[in-house]
């Protein structure tokens, strides 16, 4: 009896030694334990391709936006940037940013971030008056009240709504199902949406976009220079960036 038990154990040990050493060791041999641990960290993060059911359509719109950028936005923004000094363009950026107050205030309060909602209110009042319609930002520079960027997509995420899947919107760029819904809500919280003239609304929105592009010239080109497949990279980057914003 004893002999059988011992040889059983011996066999088991031999089995484990022979086979148990193969699989993880192959990797950690090359990598060492540190790398294997880090590998697990990255492996447990997002598995990309399985979560992109609209991929063919997304790629089409991605290309559309890419062309739009290089054929229209970038050339015009480049010329604009040569004419208008950076300080002016930053001021314009602040003006449009100030108009984002209702959306930010609503999202902050829906997330229970009442102190931040207060900050946003204070910023709006100060910047619209002393800051001359938001072109300047005395709320931050003098009073050190920091902005509290939030949007309804983040609010939905805080309430447990999953991102759904990636959606690339024409003109607007990468998003996901949840954030699209968030954008719709934020549309109704945007003062510009309540102007009567369609032309004026488009002009303002277009100007905002052009101004933003002019402040970030060359970045998209750089990103493309560093990737073989900008689409997959951007989808991954968008997700990570949003996750970071939501956690904040």
């Amino acid at each position, binding site marked *: 009896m004893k002999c059988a038990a011992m040889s059983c154990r011996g066999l088991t040990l031999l089995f484990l030694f022979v086979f148990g050493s193969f699989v993880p060791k*192959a*990797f950690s041999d*090359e*990598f*060492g334990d*540190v*790398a294997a641990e*880090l*590998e697990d960290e*990255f*492996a447990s*993060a*997002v598995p*990309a*391709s399985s979560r992109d059911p609209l991929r063919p359509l997304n790629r089409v719109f991605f290309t559309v936006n890419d062309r739009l950028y290089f054929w229209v936005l970038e050339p015009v923004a480049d010329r604009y940037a040569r004419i208008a000094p*950076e300080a002016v*363009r*930053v001021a314009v*950026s602040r003006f449009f940013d100030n108009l984002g107050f209702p959306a930010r205030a609503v999202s902050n309060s829906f997330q229970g971030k009442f102190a931040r909602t207060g900050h946003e209110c204070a910023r709006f009042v100060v910047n619209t008056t002393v800051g001359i319609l938001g072109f300047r930002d005395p709320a931050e520079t003098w009073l050190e009240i920091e902005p509290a960027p939030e949007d309804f997509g983040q609010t939905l995420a805080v309430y447990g709504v999953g991102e759904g899947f990636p959606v690339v919107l024409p003109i607007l760029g990468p998003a996901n199902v949840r954030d699209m819904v968030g954008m719709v809500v934020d549309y109704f919280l945007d003062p510009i949406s309540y102007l009567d003239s369609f032309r004026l609304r488009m002009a303002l929105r277009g100007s905002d976009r052009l101004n933003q592009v002019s*402040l970030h010239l*060359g*970045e998209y080109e*750089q*990103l493309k*220079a*560093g*990737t*073989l*497949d900008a689409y*997959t*990279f951007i*989808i*991954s*980057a968008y997700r*990570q*960036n949003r*996750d*970071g*914003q939501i956690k904040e």
Partner: protein
Amino acid sequence: MKSVSMIALFLCVVMGCDIRADEAQEARQVVKTAVDEVLGVLKNSASESAEVRDEKVNAVVRRVFDTSLMAKLVLGREYWPRLSDEQKTEFETLFVKQLQNSYLGKASMFTERDVVVGDAVGQGGKMTVKSEVSSGAEHISLLYKLHRERETGEWKIYDVEINDVSIIASHRTEYGDILARNSVDEFLERMRNKVTETENTPQ
């Protein structure tokens, strides 16, 4: 006897804390020095040829980043073993060049004044260092992830998160997607072409 062991325990804790603080300082210093050096090189690059500048930056990058670990992590358990030894070396070189091409152009816009390097946090051989870059309208937050290399005991960077976007994670997704549909040879061919194309295009 008990008081001696209590003192010994107390000393261990205190010294342990000290060691932790030293480690944090070391890790932070690695990042700070690297950032200052690279920014310095980029700022003074007007008088030098592109090759000299690239060489200097490359030297810093190779010293401070654990490029072989990064190459392994970016392809991961699934794809890394598929490469031959030659291909692994080639990939590592291409990957580093790719990173330099995409991230350093932006870096040249900033000076040391714009960069604030925070304290290192972490334990167990891993540290993270936060850094903020602000200039004009720009505000970028960076998170450097470091680990202590076993052989040399030095702290090396293995990933950087730029506004919460991890370089390793993003490229991992990208390359994984390509390798799922293409052979290793095709993949490396694409990388070679891309790097050559980028280097030949005026930035």
